[in-house]
C-alpha cells in the first residue's frame, strides 16, 4: 500500500511536471516573441518556480485537482481491469490521459470557458498536458503492477 501510494505520488509529480513545464515554456516562448530579454537563468528559474508555485502557491491548488483527477481515473481503470482484458499499462495510460482531458477540456466548460491553466489555452497545450497524463498513467500502470505482484507473493 505504501509503495502504491509512493508510485501514485510519483505519477502525480510526472503529470504536474508537464502542467508546469508546458505553462512555463509557452509563457517564455511568447515573451521571447515580443522581444522580452529571456535568458537561460530566467528559463531555469521560471521552470522551478512554476513547478513549486503551481503546486502550492496558486489561488486554487492545481496539484489537488490533478491528484483528484488521477485518483478517480485510476480507480475506474482498476475496476475496468477486472471486467475487460487489457494490458494494465495501457488502461492506466488511457485513464491518466482521461484525467488530464477532464481537467484541461471539461473543467473550463464549468467556468465560462476560462482556461485556468495558462499552458492549456491552445490545442497543442491541451494535447501536451493530456500526453503528460498518459505518461503518468503508464508509469503508474507499470510500477503498481510490481506492487500487486509483490502483494500476491
Amino acid at each position, binding site marked *: 500500500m505504501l509503495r502504491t501510494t509512493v508510485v501514485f505520488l510519483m505519477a502525480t509529480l510526472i503529470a504536474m511536471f508537464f502542467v508546469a513545464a508546458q505553462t512555463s515554456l509557452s*509563457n517564455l516562448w511568447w*515573451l521571447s516573441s515580443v522581444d522580452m530579454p529571456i535568458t537561460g537563468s530566467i528559463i531555469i528559474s521560471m521552470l522551478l518556480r512554476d513547478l513549486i508555485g503551481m*503546486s502550492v502557491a496558486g*489561488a486554487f491548488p492545481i496539484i489537488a485537482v490533478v491528484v483528484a483527477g488521477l485518483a478517480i481515473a485510476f480507480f475506474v481503470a482498476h475496476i475496468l481491469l477486472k471486467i475487460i482484458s487489457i494490458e494494465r499499462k495501457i488502461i492506466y495510460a488511457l485513464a491518466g490521459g482521461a484525467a488530464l482531458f477532464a481537467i484541461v477540456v471539461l473543467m473550463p466548460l464549468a467556468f465560462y470557458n476560462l482556461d485556468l491553466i495558462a499552458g492549456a489555452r491552445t490545442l497543442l497545450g491541451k494535447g501536451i498536458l493530456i500526453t503528460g497524463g498518459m505518461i503518468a498513467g503508464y508509469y503508474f500502470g507499470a510500477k503498481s503492477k510490481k506492487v500487486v505482484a509483490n502483494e500476491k507473493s
Partner: protein
Amino acid sequence: MKSLNLGSFLIGLFLHSTLIFSNEVAYKTEVVVEGLDNPWSIAFVSENQWLVTERSGDLRTVKDGILQSDPVAGVPEVLFAGQGGLSEVLLHPKFSENRLVYLSFSESDSVETKLNRLTVVRGRLEGNSLVDIKTIFGSHPLRKTAAHYGARMKFMADGTLLITSGDGFNYREKAQFLDNHFGKIVRVNDDGSIPADNPFLNTPGALPEIWSYGHRNLQGLVIADDGTVFEHEHGPKGGDELNVVEPGKNYGWPAITYGVDYSGAIISPFTDQPGMEQPIQYWVPSIAPSGMTLYRGDMFPMWKGDLFIAALVPGDVRRIELDGEKTINETIMFNEFGRIRDVASAPDGSLILATDGENGKLIRVSAVK
C-alpha cells in the same frame, strides 16, 4: 423583491444609518436602496433621479430614494454569465438637451451564438423607455469566455468617448497587439465614428479606435478636470494597477506585471521594460478594484480632488490622495459593507456606494450637519 415602499424604506433608513466620526471628517452612511440584482454602475439624471444597472440585464430607476418597480424598457438583451451582463450606464455630456444614455454590456453573437463580445449602445431616454438605440461599438474579435470585459466608459472634454475593453482572460497576449480590442482603451465619437486624431489611425494593421493598449481588466475610469485620465485594472493574483493613461502608450500587460497567475504560475518575470508604462500605484495582494470616482463635491471639502476606488476584496473603498499624477496617501474606508462594486459622486456631494451581489444595496455617504 425589486421595489421598496416608503415604510420599509424609512425603517431601513433607521436601521442602516450609521454615524462615523473620524479626526478628519464626520459622515453618516445610510442604505438608500436594497434588493438590486448585482448592481454595477450608477448615473445621476438629477439629484433625485438615478439610473442603476443590474448585471442581470435591467436598467433601474431610483426616484427620491425609492427604487421604481418597472425597469427602463428597451434595454437590449444581454449575456448574463460569468462576469458579463449589463455593465456601465453613462449620460451624454449634453444629456439635458439630447437625453442620450450609453450602455455597455456583453452579448452573444447572433450567428456564432457560443461566442460573445463587449457592446456599447446609445439610446434616447423617453419617459421610462430607451428609444432609437444604436450600437456604437462592438469588440473584435469575438470571444468564448465570459470574463474580463472592462466595460467602463467616460466622456472626454472634447466630447469623445473612452471605452475600456478587457483582455477576455484567455486572450491576454492579444493585449500587446493592435489588431484587436482585447486589453485596450478605445476612443470613439459620441456616435461611434472614429476621431480624426486617434493615435493609431495611420498605423498599418491597427484598429483605428485604439487609444491605449497593454491593459488587463479595466474596471475604473476617471477623467480629471485637467484632462488627466486615471484608469485602474484588475491584476491577476496580485498586481492590480492604477494608471495615468496617455494616448498611444503601452501599459505592458502581460509582458510586465506585478502579479502571478491564479494557478501560481509566473506570467512574466519582468515588472518593467523600456517602452512600457509603469502604474502610479499597484496592489499586492490584490484588492480587486471595481468602480472609481474623482470627488469634486462640496459636502466633504477634505476629499476634494481625491480618487475613491471601490474594492471587491476584501470589500472596502480606497481613498487615494493625489499630488498631480502621483499618489501620496491611501486610506481604507467603508469596510463594513462587504464587496463594493461601484462608488459614484452624487450631484449633492454625497458618495453613493453600490454593494455587489444578488441583494445589492446603494449606500449614501453624507456629511453630518
